Each structure stands twice: as structure tokens, then as C-alpha cells.
């Protein structure tokens, strides 16, 4: 039972915040309770780390892998909560319930990270999705968030349908919902049921990860959702889904089938190409980052497929990449959300023209985040990409690596366009004037330092991801 502490604490925090709102409606109070809950959850990972690995009920497996991803998710949620505090103050909404939804979403993503069973897989996904409907449309007086909420609802329902159908087929073929038992039953199961089932599950997951060609919802939702929520969708929710994808495929030896390898290769190439090419012409920073996230998920898939040579290396590369991506993405969306006002978010690249000459630190931070996304040294993104390429090369995935290199040069172009705008010396600029909330300023400072730290001295983090024990 002790191994379940992170889930218990997260659920408890959600309930306590909800009760707290009922008795005393105050933004600061709800925010403090949320922070306390998330901090307690993070802290609980240390004692839990001593009792793992442990299977808790057939549904959840608590091991180093699950703990690492839960840690990432909760830390990202903490960052999102801090961003949301400043952001919601500027919005004409009642802010308190936001935190309840956020905690529930974090719970869903964490359950996914520890899931070893179709039931917990589906439950986690639905907890996450339902909370996200609300979060997406939270500033409900504005049209774009509502649109984002509806779009996300339709998408999530569609992907859940695919997933459920796939799960049913696999269940019909193997007679079990447990990943480990399934691995035993697969060799004798009828392939006519297993293959379509696995394919449907992959499609459902691809929707959630926004892999091309299942990415169409991404730019609209990223643009419409409030910036802190976009940060959450881009980070915590994807980490949970990636964790379950890795566990599901690796437990089942999924990459032993040539069809699965082909499918993952196609998804990776399509995502890298589509994401980077479509981002080229964007003039809206949030949409640009949405397309860039599609491309980045493609890069992560390259690391994922490196499991052909060694699942442990692939899991470590994915874990490290997601860490770097989290720091970077939270930083980028954090800046957007920290600069938001009641009038709206600074979305257009034009809003950032010449920012360096007025707010040098902000501009340098945003430039560093963008260069990290582009994979330039001194930033976390460089080492993450290096690790992905190294893992891919070790698995001799030369085609994928070549596509990665070429598309990331294409990608460099649009990041550089924003960087050039930041440092532009022309004076016809629309200033981003908003003062930064102090909590968000601190958070961004921490993320910036983290970005450089991971980029220059990654050894502690590498040890952490290399110790992820996967069966």
C-alpha cells in the first residue's frame, strides 16, 4: 500500500482543494493547498523509491520507471500551477476550481505511468482527458478556449473509441487484460485479432501524442487553450501516455513484429516531416510550438524504436529527452503565460519583435528555450537530441536518423525566425508590456538554470534515467 502514496496524496490533494473551496473561496488558499499537495507527492517519491519494485494490485506496477515518469509529471504540474496562478489572476473567471482539475489531470497521467493493465490504462487516460476538457475551456467567456475544449473532447472521444476497440480485440485474442500475462498468451493467439487490435491501440495513442497523421487537432487546441494548460498538454499528459506506450510495447515485445516496426517508423518520419514543415509558415508562436511539438514527438519515437537494440537504452533516451523537452516547453509556454494580460496572450511573433532591447532577460530566456528546441549546445535540447541520435545509431536506424537530421535543420529555420525577431533592431514594434508575476519569474529562472545545467553537466540526470529498470 505504501507504494501507492503518490496516487493517494494526489487524490487527497484534489479532494482537499475542493473542500477548501467549499468552505473558503480564495485563490491564494486554493493555490497554496495545491502546491502543498504537489510538493508532498514529490516528496513521497523518496520513501516509495525504497520499497519498489512492487506490483500493487494487478493494475499498477510501481518501479523506477513509473516513479521517474510520475516525478516528471508532478514536477511539471507544479510548474503549471505556478504559471496558472499568475495567469488566472488576469482572467475574468473564478480561478479556484482550476486547481482541482489540474490535480485530477496529474493523477490521471501518473496512473498511466504506472499502468500495467488495460483497465488502469483506460482509467488513467479517461481521468486525464475528462480533466483536460475542463481545463482547456476554463476561460469560458472567450471563444478560442471553448473551441479548444470542444475539439479536445471530440478528439479524446475518438481516440478512446479506437483504444477500446483495440483493447477488446486483443482481449478477445488473448483472454487477458494484463500486459505481462498477455505477453505469455500472444504467441498462441490468433494474429487476425491481435494485429488489428494492436494497430487500433497505436492509433488511439497516436491521437493523444499528436503524431502525424493524427495531429490535426494539435495547433487549434494549443492555440486556443490557456497557455498554462497548453504547457500541461504538451508535457505532463504526453509523458503519461509515452510511459504507458513504452510499457505496453516493451512488455509485449511489440517491436519484434516487423509490422509494428514499420508502423512506428512511418509515424516517426511523418511526424518529424509534417511538424517541421508545417511550422515553417506559422506566424503565431503557440501554433508554431504546437507543430514543433509534433516534430519532437517524432524524435522521441526514434528513441522509442531504438529499443530494437536495447529497451533499457531506449527507455533511458526517451526519459532523458522528455526531461529536456519538459524544461524547454514549460519555459517557452511559461513565458507566454507570464506575459499574458486580461486582453489576451502575446501569441503573434510580431508581439516579440525587438523584445531583447526592452526586456533583455526575457528575450534571452525565450531565445534559449527556442535554441534548446532546435538542439543547439549549452542547452538541454542538444544533449537530448544527441542521446536520441546515439541510441538510434546504436540500433542502426540510419534512415530515421537521416530524416531527423534533415528535418531538424528545416526546423531550425523557424526557430531562428523567432530568434531574429527577438533581436530585431527595427523600432516599429508592438511592445509586450505586461509585468511578470514574481512566482512565474522565479519559476522561469529555475527552468532557465535547469536548461543550462542539463545541457552542460547532465551526468546526474543520465544516471537517473540509466537506472530506470524495465523488465
Amino acid at each position, binding site marked *: 500500500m505504501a507504494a501507492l502514496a503518490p496516487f493517494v496524496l494526489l487524490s487527497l490533494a484534489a479532494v482537499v482543494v475542493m473542500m477548501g473551496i467549499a468552505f473558503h473561496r480564495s485563490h491564494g488558499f486554493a493555490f497554496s493547498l495545491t502546491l502543498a499537495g504537489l510538493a508532498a507527492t514529490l516528496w513521497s517519491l523518496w520513501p516509495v523509491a525504497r520499497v519498489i519494485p512492487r506490483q500493487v494490485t494487478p493494475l499498477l506496477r510501481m518501479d523506477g520507471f513509473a516513479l521517474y515518469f510520475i516525478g516528471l509529471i508532478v514536477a511539471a504540474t507544479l510548474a503549471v500551477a505556478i504559471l496558472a496562478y499568475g495567469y488566472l489572476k488576469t482572467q475574468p473567471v473564478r480561478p479556484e476550481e482550476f486547481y482541482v482539475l489540474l490535480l485530477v489531470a496529474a493523477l490521471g497521467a501518473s496512473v498511466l505511468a504506472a499502468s500495467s493493465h488495460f483497465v488502469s490504462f483506460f482509467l488513467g487516460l479517461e481521468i486525464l482527458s475528462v480533466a483536460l476538457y475542463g481545463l482547456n475551456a476554463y476561460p469560458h467567456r472567450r471563444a478560442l478556449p471553448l473551441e479548444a475544449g470542444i475539439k479536445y473532447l471530440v478528439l479524446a472521444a475518438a481516440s478512446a473509441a479506437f483504444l477500446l476497440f483495440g483493447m477488446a480485440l486483443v482481449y478477445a485474442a488473448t483472454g487477458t487484460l494484463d500486459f505481462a500475462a498477455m505477453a505469455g498468451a500472444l504467441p498462441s493467439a490468433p494474429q487476425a485479432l491481435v494485429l488489428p487490435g494492436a494497430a487500433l491501440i497505436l492509433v488511439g495513442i497516436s491521437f493523444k501524442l499528436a503524431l502525424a497523421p493524427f495531429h490535426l487537432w494539435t495547433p487549434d487546441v494549443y492555440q486556443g487553450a490557456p497557455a498554462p494548460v497548453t504547457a500541461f498538454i504538451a508535457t505532463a499528459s504526453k509523458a503519461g501516455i509515452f510511459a504507458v506506450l513504452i510499457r505496453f510495447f516493451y512488455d509485449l515485445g511489440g517491436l519484434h513484429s516487423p509490422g509494428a516496426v514499420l508502423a512506428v517508423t512511418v509515424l516517426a518520419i511523418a511526424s518529424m516531416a509534417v511538424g517541421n514543415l508545417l511550422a515553417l509558415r506559422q506566424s503565431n508562436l503557440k501554433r508554431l510550438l504546437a507543430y514543433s511539438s509534433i516534430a519532437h514527438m517524432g524524435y522521441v519515437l526514434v528513441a522509442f524504436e531504438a529499443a530494437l*537494440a*536495447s529497451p*533499457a*537504452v531506449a527507455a*533511458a533516451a526517451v526519459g532523458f529527452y522528455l526531461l529536456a523537452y519538459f524544461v524547454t516547453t514549460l519555459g517557452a509556454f511559461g513565458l507566454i503565460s507570464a506575459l499574458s494580460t486580461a486582453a489576451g496572450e502575446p501569441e503573434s511573433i510580431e508581439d516579440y519583435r525587438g523584445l*531583447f*532591447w526592452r526586456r*533583455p532577460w526575457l528575450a534571452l530566456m525565450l531565445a534559449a528555450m527556442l*535554441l534548446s528546441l532546435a538542439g*543547439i*549546445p*549549452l542547452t538541454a535540447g*542538444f544533449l537530448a537530441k*544527441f542521446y536520441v*541520435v*546515439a*541510441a538510434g*545509431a*546504436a540500433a*542502426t536506424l540510419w534512415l530515421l*536518423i*537521416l530524416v531527423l*537530421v*534533415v528535418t*531538424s*535543420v528545416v526546423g*531550425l*529555420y523557424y526557430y*531562428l*525566425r523567432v*530568434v*531574429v525577431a527577438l*533581436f530585431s*533592431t527595427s523600432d516599429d514594434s508592438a511592445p509586450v508590456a505586461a509585468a511578470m508575476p514574481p512566482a512565474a519569474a522565479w519559476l522561469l529562472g529555475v527552468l532557465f538554470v535547469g536548461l543550462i545545467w542539463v545541457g552542460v*553537466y*547532465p*551526468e546526474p540526470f*543520465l*544516471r537517473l534515467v*540509466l537506472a530506470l529498470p524495465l523488465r
Partner: protein
Amino acid sequence: MLLLWLLVILAAAGALAPLVHRWHANAPRWLALFALAADFGLVLQLWLRAPRLAGWRMQLDWTWIPAFGIRFHLGLDGLSLLLLLLTFFLGMVAVLASWRDIQRGVGFFHLNLLWLLTGIAGVFLALDLFLFYFAWELMLVPMFLLIAIWGHERRRYAAIKFFLFTQLSGLLMLIAILALYLYHYAATGVLTFEYAQLMATPLAPSASLWIMLGFFAAFMVKLPMFPFHTWLPDAHTEASTAGSVILAGLMLKTGAYGLLRFVLPLFPSAVRSFAPWALVLAAIGILYGALLAYAQTDLKRLVAYTSVSHMGFVLLGIFAAAVAPPGSAAAQWALDGVVLEILCHGFSTGALFVLAGILQERMHTREMGRMNGLWAVMPRLGGAGLFFALAAIGLPGLGNFVAEFLILLGTFHVSVGLAVAASIGILASTFYGVELVQRAFHGPNRHGWQLPDLSRREALALVPMMAALLWLGLYPQPIFNTAFPAFTSPSGAALPEPPRSLPQPHTRYSLFPIP
């Protein structure tokens, strides 16, 4: 430790530059000059103390990222020493040249300039291939910003083009480095990016060729070799004076250095089989660069194309030395010529860009058609222009002549035809050199220019470069004595002696499965 200090002084001065700008507008310039002079002095005293020392003079070998077998390994031999001297010297020239040119964001400008030079110095010192790639990429962002912020009219286009070209080729090199690293791991079970250890990797000929091409791609774009030169005229023309000086004087040299330090020693047989292509492209580059330089009307563009031509000589010399019998005099001549050409081109082209910057600052144009007859109003500047133009076309008595002569001599023993073609390139260079002087400085002062002559600060930047070119043209032996030991090794020509490093402990992590 001294090697680390060289980098730390520059990086720290760069970080301080925006802060000291608050005290005084010129404080960043003085800080940068001081830091560069300190580094220059440190390296110079190393050189003077032991001008003929063979092998590695100094090394620094620290653990950096043991999980990947990455070490922070710096090493200084004769070749790196000469290039470092050039780096710090041209750095000072760049600071002096931008003294009045740069008025906006002075602190940030010097931050970029110094970090750029830190990256370049890192490239010349790195002996761990990962560290080398790290430094290689580290040069890009500051250079990009130098062009994009302080450049001329089409700066954004030029900056992005520069970045994309170098980044794509750099990533190809990264793949090659990783492939070499993994081959080494498969063969020995040791994860290392260590230069000396990777040199001993047994490679199949086809693998060796592919990996060599990955490195080659990066160095060819930087050098640049025809037909990968198209970023260069744009970047050189649009960059501010300091940016152009660093680009032409140093950044192109990192490509040549990479060939000498890594490609030749790591893949001797692959280089030999690929050499005919490289030699022919080098000869084409010499002629093509000279022809295009002749056709330019923009002063900076003209100088930029002369760089393509001169770097053709560097490439020719490097591959001539690779094909010549190991240890032969021809190989030695070619390599000596290459090192000298690297230094002299840095001085002569750097100076021409400084002159172009001075003219642009006063006249607000780079069009030679609008200049005419400047000698009458600016005799000192005209004289300097003539001097450096003559140096660029290889006038005997100046360093470039000795360098190109040695390269041709080495090439002649390898291929008479190519040596003849390259000699025609020297002839063609006379055209653009004379054209430059004639159009800009001679003739009547048709546009009625009234301009101030060279200031003392500008002369301070230019006169040492003249002196250096004269010295290298009349008595280049000290350069050969210093660079020479770098190229002799028991195993043959063109093989810098591998640095001695500690045996690597077998890594405790299982990062990659042994294929």
C-alpha cells in the same frame, strides 16, 4: 590548467561585458581588448619559450560526462598554438575595428564576440571529439547574432543561411562522430570520444569512407569548398566588420584545422581514395573564386570571393599532402604551405575587411563604382589597401606568396595538371587585386569625396598585420619550426602524433549493447 584559463578568461570577460557597459560606454571594448591581450600574451610566451617543441606541449584531461565516455580533454601542439595566436590577434583587431562602428548594444556585442572566440579557441584545443563538436556548434549562435543584429541590409537572410548551412553539415559530422564512436565501442568495448583512441579503431574501407565523408561535409562547408561556398559571400558581405574579420580570418580556418587534425589522421586510406575528387574541386574553387571576385562591384563581396579562391589553395595543399608519399618532401612542403596560407590569409583578408569597414563607415557604401580616386583624399588608407591587395594576390616578399608557392610545389609532385590550373588561379588573382586598387583608389576623385584618413586606432589594427605579413614573407621559418613537429610522426606524413592520455576505465554503465 593554462589551457582552461585561456577559455575561461574569454568567456568570463564576455559575460561581464554587458555589466560593465553600465559604467562606461567603452568599458566592454577595453575589457575585451584586455582579455584578448592577456590570452595572446599567455600563448606567445609559451611559444617564445619553446619555439621548436614537438608533440603535445600541454594537456588538460578531465572527466565530463562519464556515462557517455565524454572527457573534457584539451591539448596544445604547434599547430593549435599558431592558430590560437591568430585567433587572439584577430580578436583584438575585430574589437578595434568595431570601436566606432558598433553603437547599439555594445555590451551584448562584445559578449557575442568573446564567446564566439571562446568557441573557436575550443575548436583549436579540443581532443575529445564530443568536446570538439560542442565547441564547433558553440561558434554558431554568437556568429549568427553578430550577423543578424549588427549586420548590413540583408542581414537576416545572410544570418539564417549561414546558420542552416553550417548546422546541416555539422549534424552530418555528428552522425559520423557517433558512428566512429559506436564502431570503436563494438570493436573494443570502450565508450570513448578520445581522439587518440579513436584513431586506432579498425574500420572497414566502406565504413571509413562514409564516416570520413561526414566529417568532410562539415569542414567543406566551413572552409568552404566549391560548390558549398554559397553561404559565404552573403555572410561575409552582410556581417559587420568584426563579424567579417572573424568569419574570414578564423571561422574558415576551423574547417582547415578539422581536416588537418581529424580527417587526415583518422581516415588515411579513405582520404587517399577520395583525394582526386577533393583536389579537382579545390582547383575549381581556386579558379572560380578568382573569376567571381573579378566580377564583383561590392568591395566586401569581392574580398569574400577571394576567400573562396584562397581556401581552394588550402584544400589543395592538404589533399596533395595526403596523396604524396608519407614523409616525403612534397607532403612536407604542402603542409607547411597550408599552415602559412592559413595565417597569411587571416591577416590579409582580415585587413581587407577592416579597410572595407572603414570605407563603409565613412562613405556608407561598399560599391566600388562610387569610390574612385580615394588615394588623393586618404593616402594612408590607399597605401594600406594596395599593400593588402598585393598580399592577397601573392606578391613575393609577403607571406601569401611563400604559402602558395609551397602548396604549388607540393601539388606539382602529385599532379602537374592541377598545379598548372592552380597557378592560373594566382594569375587570375592579379586581375581582381589590381581591379580592386584601381577602381577604389586610383583615378580622379569623381564624386568629390572629402574623407578623414586612417585614424590612429585604425592604424594600430592594420600596421601589425602589415608587419606580420612582411615577416612571414621574408622569414617564415619559425612558423615551420613550430608547425613542423605537429606533422611528423613515425607512421608517416600528415599524422599528428596521438596525444598520450590515460587508459580509459571500462564504463560501468551499459549505455549501448555491443552489436
